[in-house]
């Protein structure tokens, strides 16, 4: 649910990072936070457990500048990936404008990727969204690991509508901004249609 404020000349969009536990969602946000000018970003809020697992969400507000005289603001959220936090994931998806699915490239995590993707589809549907039509991008993270599956294999198993797909190493920033940019573009293009 984009919030268009004609009075303050602002648009606000919500983007959610989804994916299985430990796939690197929080790491994506941390990289974006570290690499953005201080005046373009707010605080990074992490509601996490003592072991740095996301408990409820991470949140980062990002000012991208102006389009057609409107200040463009993206609110980035991550969900907790661990299976038993499903109730929290549903809450975070409320009002979402675009989704980034972060997949873990390690072979033993493929099943968790698929399960999480199905969970995303189901939770979106509950809110009245359709994964097939919502602005959406796919990221294969942890490409640096020796156990990483070939990207082609992953593409065949996870890409389902030709969505923009990126290989990433979130730890060193590879692919992080490309993924965000792709989804931001889709979200803004969606606005155009309205």
């Amino acid at each position, binding site marked *: 649910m984009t919030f268009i404020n004609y009075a303050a000349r602002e648009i606000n969009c919500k983007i959610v990072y989804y994916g299985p536990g430990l796939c690197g969602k929080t790491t994506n946000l941390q990289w974006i936070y570290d690499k953005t000018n201080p005046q373009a970003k707010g605080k990074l809020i992490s509601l996490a457990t003592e072991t740095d697992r996301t408990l409820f969400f991470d949140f980062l507000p990002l000012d991208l500048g102006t389009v*057609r005289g409107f200040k463009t603001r993206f609110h980035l959220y991550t969900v907790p990936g661990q299976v038993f936090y499903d109730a929290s994931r*549903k809450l975070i998806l409320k009002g979402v404008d675009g989704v980034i699915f972060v997949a873990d490239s390690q072979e033993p995590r493929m099943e968790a990727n698929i399960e999480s993707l199905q969970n995303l589809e189901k939770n979106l549907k509950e809110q*009245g969204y359709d994964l097939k039509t919502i602005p959406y991008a796919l990221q294969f993270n942890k490409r640096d690991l020796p156990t990483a599956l070939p990207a082609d294999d992953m593409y065949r198993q996870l890409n389902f509508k030709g969505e923009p797909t990126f290989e990433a190493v979130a730890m060193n920033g590879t692919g992080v*901004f490309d993924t965000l940019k792709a989804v931001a573009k889709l979200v803004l293009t969606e606005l155009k249609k309205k």
Partner: protein
Amino acid sequence: MAAPDLVMYEEEYQQIKDILHRLQVDSNSKIVFLVDKNGQQIASQGDMRGVDATSLASLTAGNVAATDGLAKLIGEKEFSILFHEGERDNIHISLVAQRVILVVIFDEKSSLGLVRLRVKKASGELEKTFEQLLKKAEADRGNQANRFDSPFAEITDEDIDSLFSE
């Protein structure tokens, strides 16, 4: 899309700010703050210096969402009010028109009773304003002639690319 976009116009924005200002003065509180359920800040009144408004908005929405989830779990429709008491400051959170969250931060210069009373009055007024806002936005959506209003119809790829070039 599941929910219609929230749109804010100058006239209603002014009304909302006036209502919040009156609430802040009448309840003798420090800060009055309006957030949409998704954590986007709508307006605020009072001394916001030293307050991170964006974080406040996002955490409030998270708090309300979690409490909503709890309510459903035990078969309640919603808990309409949340109250957190601190050593110095207190925070009173309530839902308006089912879609926006009204936050009042106050200290010993006010009291929970007073805040409750004034919030009730302001909520009624805000509800009317949001009704009006929704109607207007709907009319706008239906009315093709008003489309020139939308600055996004002409967004180009270059516009979007330029957002990311630094």
